[in-house]
């Protein structure tokens, strides 16, 4: 039951885009049509799902104060938490690189359809943000971390596909010239965020 609650919460209430503005750069740049938005969204879900539990284990067994006690008594007081930024980003960058090589070798058709998005994901704030929020929330086990990862990934995917669909339709409407493109997109995202805020009242 707790898993379901965490899952729904991370999709709607703590939505990566509308509540925390994470992954905004690629969100705005790649939301011009639904098909590419869909591809990027799925890639984000996948990378989040793989890196977040990995970083969770890293945090639990290496970085936290006292985490190294499995090495022996003398390591009990070691606190490496100041290294977390550099280790998390290294895990993410390395993982993305490996996935890119594997996909290129074994699934060339998927590789060509994802194209530039895969390497770009390494610098997507939603991925690093997920890991940093995970560290802050102190999940109890890997299962919770994975649930949170897949939930926030789906939330991101939902947001980007929805915005892409709106922008496709918006091409036919009359927007004041200075607002065209970037300006109106910001406002649309703001309005979508207000719509998503209605989920905040839900308690699970």
């Amino acid at each position: 039951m707790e898993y379901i609650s965490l899952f729904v919460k991370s999709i709607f209430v703590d939505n990566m885009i509308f509540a925390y503005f994470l992954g905004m750069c690629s969100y705005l740049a790649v939301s011009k049509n639904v098909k590419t938005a869909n591809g990027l969204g799925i890639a984000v879900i996948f990378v989040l799902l793989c890196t977040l539990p990995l970083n969770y284990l890293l945090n639990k067994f290496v970085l936290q104060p006292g985490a190294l006690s499995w090495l022996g008594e003398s390591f009990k007081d070691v606190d490496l938490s100041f290294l977390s930024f550099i280790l998390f980003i290294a895990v993410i960058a390395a993982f993305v690189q490996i996935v890119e090589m594997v996909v290129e070798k074994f699934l060339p058709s998927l590789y060509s359809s994802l194209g530039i998005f895969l390497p770009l994901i390494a610098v997507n704030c939603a991925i690093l943000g997920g890991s940093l929020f995970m560290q802050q929330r102190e999940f109890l086990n890997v299962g919770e971390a994975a649930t949170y990862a897949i939930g926030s990934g789906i939330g991101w995917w939902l947001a980007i596909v929805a915005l892409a669909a709106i922008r496709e339709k918006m091409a036919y409407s009359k927007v004041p010239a200075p607002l065209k493109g970037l300006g109106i997109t910001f406002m649309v995202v703001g309005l979508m965020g207000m719509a998503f805020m209605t989920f905040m009242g839900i308690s699970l």
Partner: protein
Amino acid sequence: MNEDLKKTLLNPIFKGNPITVLVLGICSSLAVTVQLKGACVMALSVIIVTGLSSLVVSLLRNSIPNRVRIIVQLVVVAMMVILVDQVLKAYAYAIDKQLSVYIGLIITNCIVMGRIEAFALGNKPIPSLLDGLANGAGYGMILIIVAFFRELLGSGTLFGFRVLPESYVPNNLVILPPMALILLGCIVWVQRSIQKDLQEK
């Protein structure tokens, strides 16, 4: 040479502003604009990180192999961010807590990586340092404008001091996240009405 430096320094502030023109680094910026104080600290941190990491990458530019440059750049940037984070934790713990994960997210802020890729890899250290600082400043300026309106209208204060009279009823909508995006949309609107050549077809 002097003209060039001046251009490097002034261009990112208005004409080539990283947020409103290049659309870089919106990710970690908007959540910290509820209060001016947080926005100022964030702006300052970003200026320091962009400046110093551009400088370091520019110094290393001839010895970084092209294939692994992304990872090298990320490590340099992460190191700078850790420095800033540790300083904040030591001297301004309350603000560090308020900014929470967003200081860490400067690592993936596209401005830092974008300027390193576009400028620092191909230029000498001093212009790179200035370019980094100026882009950080252009980013910080937008952050402070948004925070100014959000704090003024949302709680009637500036830097925590009451500015509007007691009878002013705070507009709670402005404090909520979506309003930051709409304000940013308005800033883009104003800028593009002044600079017509930026308008999209």
